[in-house]
């Protein structure tokens, strides 16, 4: 019976058939699967099923409640938009891994226990790397590898945290965990890496813009929002998240202003929007959680829309760099219009989706008395309009005329963009259906005179600042460049460090070979001492510390296989 079937497995299992199909049939098939998925969610009753027991723990494969349902719905909606946008693309690898990726994210959303969560979590991570690799360029291969390494760290942390939590509490249910629980810190860090917390955020800006035109649209929706879901489930009301979130809203916008690759600019603004959600989770009140969840919902659509418009530009012109573009509105008017709708939505203009969701977070922050976070969020709100609402459409479609006269985007892309734009405006104009899906009853009215006018003031004046800076020539021009971020640490420093270590290691080794026999003898004596019948390493150890050792070894091997 379909109602008792684990939601994610529908897509994961369905992906197996993709390589055997071709052309329109294949595209139609990849569209039917998420449509069936939505149908299944509508039929699902709240509750749990798929109980089983392994590793000595009671597991719940599927838990359906309002929090998992709303993420399930939006994940399927994102999949539908992505599939339509990618209709023309006949790359079987990207199409099937995209389905597995979506299915894994949905499976994780409905996972009732941490072990099931871990399984889907890792599957989503691996699948997303294959989507990056589907671009089949040297750059995408390397960026994918870097993502994989960082995901591995997240996986190791999650496994360590789960093992510590499970041994201490005796259960693996995925409910509120909190930082004070044993292993809680590890689990939060694992979620945090996928949520692009500051300093561990660069896999996002590094990897996503290297995927294909269509791959990036898929990537933008799932990994990070799955992390937001996991944080909302496990760490709602954890105060440190407010400060982490506030940092995330603020610093990426500086990079977004000077970054040239417009898809990378969008990755930075994705990071900034995640910050708003993390703040909401950190506040943890019903209004704030509703705000974070609804913002994730609206965000997935407008961010996909923005990535689609830049994808269409890349598809037609061969570049998404601000320095190479401009004046495209003349021949791509529809894409321009859709991009402006996406920009207005992410900037939270009244009548667009961001307005009815982000304001719940801002209101809860103000009401709980967090003055500094409130001011930073206001700054970030003005800033996001600046770089996503204005910079993206301005440099791609207006600005100086690049002389490029590409054709309008293909019909399937326009259709996907049109649907997304329709949803952005629909949610903004009539938020009631979205509010009804939220985890807690909503007692919030976004459209008050005060709220509309103050928001317009903030945004329109921010726009004025852009216009003045442009007219006075103070605005930094788009330049072909690389902007250093925290990835400098692992793309420049770490490789040189590792190389240095091998060099020193090699010299030490050659010195030692002279005394090799003596060394060998000493080594054998040492092994007998430690691991022999009375050796320290031969004792039985509790599993908890065993996991820690395994994690340490894995982390060490990561360092050594870095190059």
């Amino acid at each position: 019976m379909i109602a008792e079937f684990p939601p994610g497995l529908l897509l994961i299992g369905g992906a197996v058939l993709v390589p055997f199909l071709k052309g329109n049939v294949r595209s139609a098939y990849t569209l039917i699967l998420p449509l069936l998925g939505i149908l299944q969610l509508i039929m699902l009753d709240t509750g749990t099923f798929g109980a089983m027991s392994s590793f000595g723990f009671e597991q719940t494969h599927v838990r359906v409640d309002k929090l998992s349902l709303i993420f399930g719905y939006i994940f399927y909606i994102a999949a539908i938009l992505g599939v339509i946008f990618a209709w023309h693309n006949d790359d079987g690898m990207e199409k099937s891994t995209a389905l597995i990726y979506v299915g894994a994210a949905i499976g994780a959303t409905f996972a009732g226990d941490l072990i099931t969560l871990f399984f889907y979590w890792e599957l989503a991570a691996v699948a997303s790397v294959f989507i990056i690799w589907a671009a089949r360029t040297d750059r995408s291969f390397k960026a994918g590898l870097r993502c994989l390494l960082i995901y591995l760290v997240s996986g190791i942390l999650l496994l360590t945290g789960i093992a510590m939590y499970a041994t201490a509490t005796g259960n693996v249910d995925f409910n509120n965990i909190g930082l004070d629980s044993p292993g809680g810190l590890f689990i939060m860090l694992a979620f945090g890496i996928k949520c692009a917390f500051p300093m561990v955020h660069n896999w996002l800006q590094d990897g996503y813009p290297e995927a294909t035109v269509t791959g990036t649209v898929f990537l933008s929706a799932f990994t990070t929002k799955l992390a937001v879901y996991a944080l909302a489930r496990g760490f709602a009301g954890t105060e440190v998240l407010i400060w982490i979130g506030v940092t995330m809203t603020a610093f990426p916008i500086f990079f977004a202003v000077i970054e040239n690759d417009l898809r990378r600019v969008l990755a930075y603004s994705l990071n900034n929007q995640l910050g708003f959600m993390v703040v909401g989770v950190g506040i943890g009140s019903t209004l704030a959680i509703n705000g974070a969840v609804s913002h994730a919902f609206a965000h997935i659509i407008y961010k996909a829309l923005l990535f689609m418009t830049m994808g269409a530009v890349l598809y037609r012109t061969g570049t998404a760099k601000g320095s190479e573009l401009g004046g495209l509105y003349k021949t791509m008017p529809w894409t321009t219009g859709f991009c402006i709708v996406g920009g207005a939505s992410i900037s939270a203009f009244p009548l667009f989706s961001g307005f009815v969701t982000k304001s719940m977070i801002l209101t809860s922050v103000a009401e709980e008395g967090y003055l500094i976070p409130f001011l930073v969020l206001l700054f970030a709100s003005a800033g996001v309009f600046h770089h996503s609402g204005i910079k993206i459409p301005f440099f791609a479609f207006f600005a100086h005329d690049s002389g490029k006269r590409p054709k309008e985007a293909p019909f399937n892309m326009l259709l996907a963009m049109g649907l997304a734009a329709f949803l952005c405006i629909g949610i903004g104009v009539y938020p009631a259906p979205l509010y009804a899906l939220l985890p807690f009853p909503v007692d919030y009215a976004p459209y008050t005179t005060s709220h509309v006018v103050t928001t317009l003031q903030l945004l329109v004046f921010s726009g004025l600042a852009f216009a003045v800076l442009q007219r006075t020539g103070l605005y930094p021009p788009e330049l072909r460049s690389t902007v250093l971020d925290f990835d400098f640490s692992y793309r420049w420093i770490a490789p040189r460090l590792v190389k240095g270590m091998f060099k020193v290691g090699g010299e030490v080794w050659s010195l030692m070979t002279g005394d090799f026999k003596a060394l060998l003898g000493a080594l054998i004596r040492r092994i007998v001492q430690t691991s022999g019948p009375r050796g320290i390493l031969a004792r039985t150890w509790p599993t908890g510390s065993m996991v820690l050792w395994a994690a340490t070894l894995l982390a060490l091997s990561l360092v050594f296989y870095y190059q």
Partner: protein
Amino acid sequence: MTDAPSNNHNTDENSATKNGKRYWLDDMRNVYKLFWALVTLCVLLTLADLFYEKHVVYEFEHWFGFFGFFGFSVSFALVLTARELRKLLMRDEDYYDR
């Protein structure tokens, strides 16, 4: 690879000069008109503060024109700071590939 952006060039670099179609925004006077329309909108939005009761949490939010002033100044500061950051963080396009 089916989705190579380079395979989808539909750009005719010369068409701008060839068919020379002038768009409304190509005329700088119209761009200035838009700029002044934006300024007018800002003035109107600020004056709007006189005609309704603000429902906000903090005292400073009640100040006349606070949100406009805040929006303008932080955006201005954001861009100027980012400009300076470029001196520190900007490298050649192939920096990591060398």
